[in-house]
């Protein structure tokens, strides 16, 4: 369970003061397939970053499970992200010098998992995203859709509590988007994996079970579909 209470985020460089989030309150339960939508500059990515511990709120609390991540130190946050949160980024952000298998395996290495466990899980995950025949390819040898599927497999590798996906389909064509959404939806259905997207892609919004609309740093609507 993700519980965001009274979260504000203000950017102030001494000259310009921007209130990116203004008192956000939201709860996301395990197993949800949630899309955070809104126009550019609405605060959806800031909200996602704060939920993911990539950014800290100016005020308020973000409680994941039983941990208030707003109170964690920088190093504790990094460890927390490694063990509890999976990330999928808009531009895939795979490690270019590693193969698909090595990219997926990477987080498990950081978690000091055994080689046998790494091998088993990597194979399983790449199979789950339909890339079992691409394991030795490097990112530049794969299409955007394939790279994003590797990114999903990587996000799942560390056995996170939930996955945050920041506009995951923004760089994909329709077929790849449909394929990626199918995979994530299946993982949500079959393994009860929680997905939280920030998006303005209608195809993602259409598949989401819950759509939270953010505008001017506030939640405008929160609808279960």
């Amino acid at each position, binding site marked *: 369970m993700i519980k965001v209470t009274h979260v504000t985020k203000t950017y102030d460089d001494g000259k310009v003061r921007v209130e990116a989030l203004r008192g956000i309150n939201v709860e996301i339960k395990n197993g949800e397939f949630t899309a955070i939508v809104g126009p550019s500059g609405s605060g959806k*990515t800031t909200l996602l*970053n704060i939920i*993911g511990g*990539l*950014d800290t709120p100016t005020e308020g609390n973000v409680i994941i499970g039983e941990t208030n991540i707003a109170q964690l130190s*920088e*190093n504790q946050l*990094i*460890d927390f*992200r*490694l*063990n509890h949160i999976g*990330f999928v*980024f808009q*531009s895939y*952000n795979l*490690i*270019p*010098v*590693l193969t698909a298998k*090595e990219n997926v*395996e*990477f*987080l498990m*290495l*950081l978690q000091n998992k055994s080689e046998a466990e790494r091998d088993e899980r990597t194979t399983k995950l790449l199979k789950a995203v339909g890339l079992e025949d691409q394991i030795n390819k490097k990112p530049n040898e794969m299409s955007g859709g394939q790279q994003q599927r590797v990114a999903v497999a*990587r*996000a799942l590798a*560390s056995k996170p509590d939930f996955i945050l996906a*920041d506009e995951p389909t923004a760089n994909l064509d329709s077929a790849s988007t449909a394929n990626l959404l199918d995979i994530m939806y299946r993982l949500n259905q079959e393994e009860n994996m929680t997905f939280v997207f920030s998006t303005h892609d209608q195809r993602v919004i259409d598949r989401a079970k819950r759509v939270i609309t953010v505008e001017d740093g506030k939640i405008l609507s929160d609808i279960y579909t």
Partner: protein
Amino acid sequence: MIVKIAFKNIWRNKLRSWVVIIAIALGIFGGLAVISTATGLSKMRQNNAIRTYVSHLQLHDSAYLKYGRLDDTINQQADIITYLEKSKKVKGISPRLKVESFIQSAGGTSGVILNGIDPEKERQVTDLNEQCIAGNFLERYKQKPPIIISQKLATKLNARVKTTIQCSFTNNMGVPITGIFKVVDIFSTSNSMYDELNAFVRLEDLQNLTSIQGSHEIAVVLHEGKEVEQFREELISKFPNQHIASWRGIAPDLGYADKMMDLVMTLFLIIIMLALAFGIVNTMLMAVLERKKELGMLISVGMNKRKVFWMIIWESIFLALIAGPLGIFSTYLAVNFFGRVGIDLSFAAQGLRSIGLESTLFPILDDKYYVIISILVIITAILSCIYPALKALKLNPAETLRTA
């Protein structure tokens, strides 16, 4: 995995990495080449001086060095020579009688030090006999006592082999003495100043002329040059009344050259390491700045900053580990090759000869420099990438993912 990623990272931009690697290798090669050349020159000068006129050790009567009187000969000569001849460390000894003399021929005059030597013993100590043009190293010539003079002095006196020359000096009683000698050979060493100031006659001829028995100087050459100071101490304890000097004391300029060389080498090592450091800082800083987004992603997904830091350090170490051996190995090959065949500097032979050097240079590089350079390269590589690595640690993951 961190090490693996680091190694793979340096080949992302192959051209840039190779440019840096070659630049570092060339820097190491250039620096070590200069050091080996300088060492070669210094050793050549040292060896020439030791082989030609200084020897490893010289023994004198203390009064002779103080007053320069002719009768201040070595008073324990027989004991000293017996001791030296018995020592296994000694390769050769040569007693010398030295007289400051005025030398003249029909064609000119000059001042010289007339050295009375035993040719057979002198051969064991110096290579003067090898420097003689006609191959007559003070062999008797008819009735006149033989003398050998240098090419430079011969030119000055307008003399040649078979020329008769006259040497004049005063004995210790102030009585003028003149000796007539026949030039039997002409020598030429690599030290033109030494050549101009020295002439050689047989020891017994000079003893007869001066009515002085014994000698003023005993030159000693050891089998192992590195035992000089230890053997000197041994002799001092055995013959405390004699003045015993090693080549460093006799020709302090050679010792200073050694120290100077150490200083120059240290300076060169610092320059090499600075060049290496700037190369690595530049490369790693570029590598960090152009990978901001990726580094931000690594931190985002849970790679702690300690690992990010070490990844950057390893990248730098790999650059140094490739460039270092390349530079060191190419230096090793070059120093070995030119150490055997020599570097021809005959275009500057005259100038080199005036400072006691030959025209073929043999570079020398002590093994310790390979070890020192290897260690310094690694240390410099690590130190110089600390700044780029710290730069990477300051990245804000959310910001880099948003803006990069």
